[in-house]
């Protein structure tokens, strides 16, 4: 029983770390631009397919595949902001309309990928998968990579946000758009910046996911739903909150197996979200705003 709990906790931390990365990648965009960027799921899918095509078809090495996924994700995110969202802001579209446009983009994009690559799942080869036993817990090398890569990227990002000029500008816009504008920060440029960074991160996170779960045209939606939950659980605008939210979500999903049968796992995440929105809408580390 105790061994099982330890194993589940380890699994929770592993998926939780990836959720944290996903959450931060989406939360950065949402907190700064207030765009409910559902099409983040499409960015993930496009980046993963770029990596799969490069590695599987062109025989590029896996590390290069990751770099490509980050680059493609970044460019796709920038294009989305420029081609879809900015024109909508120009005509003063409501938040609902921007959200719907985002959904439309996701639906159209997934279909385009399905038409181009077919509905079947595609493997991302090239990573040596074996088991690692660490005391009472066991996990695969893929999961080890998740853990390492997620935390490396998270720490890099946090450092960048805290100690660089652009990072501070992003945090300023996220906490108060108007005030940031008053001190000479151009929110349009910051929007581009967060789309670039967030989209690159989700490209990498998606590729990490595809290492274990294979790629399909609809691969993006579930991880991005997890990202929403991590962000709202932790509190909008708080990077540490999103990290914490991701970890809690991962742990809750996995530890839930101790008391619930396995097929309930999918429900747990949304019950958690439901409860947070009801009882603590500002999130665990969020600032309570009116």
């Amino acid at each position, binding site marked *: 029983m105790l061994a099982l709990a330890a194993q589940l906790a380890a699994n929770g931390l592993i998926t939780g770390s990836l959720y944290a990365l996903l959450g931060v990648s989406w939360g950065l965009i949402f907190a700064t631009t207030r765009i409910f960027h559902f099409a983040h799921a499409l960015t993930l899918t496009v980046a993963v397919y770029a990596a799969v095509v490069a590695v599987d078809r062109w025989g590029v090495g896996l590390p290069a595949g990751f770099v490509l996924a980050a680059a493609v994700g970044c460019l796709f995110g920038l294009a989305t902001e420029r081609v879809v969202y900015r024109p909508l802001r120009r005509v003063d579209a409501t938040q609902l309309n921007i*959200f719907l446009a985002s959904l439309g983009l996701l*639906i159209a994009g997934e279909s385009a990928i399905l038409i181009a690559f077919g509905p079947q799942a595609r493997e991302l080869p090239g990573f040596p998968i074996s088991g690692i036993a660490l005391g009472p817990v066991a996990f695969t090398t893929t999961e080890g990579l998740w853990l390492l890569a997620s935390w490396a990227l998270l720490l890099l990002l946090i450092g960048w946000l805290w100690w660089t000029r652009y990072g501070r500008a992003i945090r300023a816009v996220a906490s108060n758009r108007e005030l940031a504008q008053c001190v000479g920060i151009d929110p349009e440029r910051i929007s581009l910046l967060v789309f670039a960074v967030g989209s690159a991160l989700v490209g990498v996170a998606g590729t990490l996911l595809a290492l274990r779960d294979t790629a399909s045209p609809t691969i993006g939606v579930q991880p991005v739903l997890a990202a929403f939950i991590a962000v709202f659980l932790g509190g909008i605008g708080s990077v540490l909150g999103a990290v914490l939210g991701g970890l809690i979500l991962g742990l809750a999903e996995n530890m839930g197996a101790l008391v619930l049968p396995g097929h309930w796992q999918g429900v747990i995440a*949304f019950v958690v979200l439901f409860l947070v929105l*009801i009882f603590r*809408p500002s999130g665990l580390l969020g600032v309570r705003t009116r």
Partner: protein
Amino acid sequence: MDFWLHVLNMIGLFAILGLSLNLLLGYAGLVSMAHAAFFGVGAYATALTARDLGLPFPLTMVAAIVFTTILAGVVTFPALRVRGEYLILLTLAFQMVIYGLMLSWVDLTAGRTGISAIPRPRLLGVTLVTPAQFLPLVLACAAGVFTIAYRIGESPLGRILKAVRDDEAATLAIGKSVLHYKVLVFCVSGGLAAVAAALFAHYQAFINPFSFNLDRSIFLVALVVLGGTANPLGTVVGAIVFVGLPELLRFLQARQDIVDAIRSLVFGLLLVLFMRFRPEGFVPEHARGFGWAGATPAGASGAIPDLTGSSEVAADAPDPALSARNLRKRFGGITAADDLSLALPRGKVTALVGPNGAGKTTVFNLLTGFLIPDGGTVELGGTDVTRRAPWRTVRLGLARSFQDVRLFERMTVLDNVLAAIPDQPGERLGPLFFAPRRAAEAERRNREKALGYLAFVGLADRAGEVASSLAFGEQKLVALARLIATEADVLLLDEPASGVDLHWIRRILDLIRRLVASGKTVCIVEHNLEVVTAVADHAYFMEAGRIIAEGRPDELMADRRLAEIYFGTVRR
């Protein structure tokens, strides 16, 4: 042939789903990503009562409607306080939980396998099996739901839903309980979705969770938005275009999954393009379908209403009309109101003046229940209204306007004013459907009244225009007409003359004088000292949450110390 009849049936079902969602999304502005979940709950309720309890057809639909309505009512409670992205996420979470339950609660729902062998309905001695046999039933139900949706949408009730959509605070300020209408519209929307659900379950004779997933919810939201929100015709057009037309793709003779993908691709792109180039959808909100008399009144016959209705009782009405004692309110470390006491003498204009940030608007919020004071009491004509909800305070006769006007921007000028008239039978479902003549009669009278209020402020000729298209000064006058329409006799005006030029100021001052002459009690917050001197009988001078002086306005103006505080010339 059967295939095209099937397509017609599906259009009918989706029209019902869309119409029910439009009430929620289009009229009340509440985005629900959980409509497929309600659809699913209704379908399972139908399937289980039909198969396991052996209920016959119309009863299964009734059971589904009752169950879904109750569930919608319960779910609403967490959704009442939230808007925008929080509501999207909350309903999305609900959708996923219900969908997860359908998959996981195997004992009840049989999980992925779904429920099969749902009994076919029997009506008038015929067992309905083929699409052709179902078609009359589906069309009849669709027509019924269309009538209900249209009736609600174009009624005083629909007007309030739109008011809730455009501005919740302003809806409270015209004396309508936002909470009540939100619960109501969630329940009605859920109940109507169950009509489609029951038909669907019997029609397919088989259901599984995959018909009720997030994609379906997204599709429904998109259908309503692309068709045209707050217009039932738009939803019908949307159902025909997005459920019917894609079937033509079948002639492509391609693989089914490719056909589906092409359909989604076009659909998704349309969604993006519509949001950019035609956000109002195919059939916009104010387009009228049946050549009904448009919103523009013919001839604006409205006589200026008898504003003196309340002044008959003025002789023995308690004076002061409103009194507040020892009001206190702190926000964190800031004291916004510190032991504030004031009284508004009946039939007079009282002014609250003071520098920016003195807490004048906070006083209005405390008096009208928008803020709950930490201590102190507010009495309105002898009744304690201290902790009442804002809308109740309005019904008791104390109403306020907003500094930033806050009209219901997407509604017509006339509807803005009409919405504020109290006690309309057409705002309740009962009279709306069971005493339509009474509702129509009241509506006709109220229109006259509202036109009268508009004539009073001099805007009767603009009644049919959308509120946001008016100039700022005109909007202020509409807001004033709306305030008068609440029939409250104590009116609190927050900066009635700010941001408008001299021409408008004169007009507004004149209106205030006429209001007082007709027996209203008025309190204004105003920065323009000339306005205050011109119209107010008595003034309170506020600074930092306290009243530091009171008297006739010209006396206060003459006080050097107050002038220094006001203009900030004092050196400390």
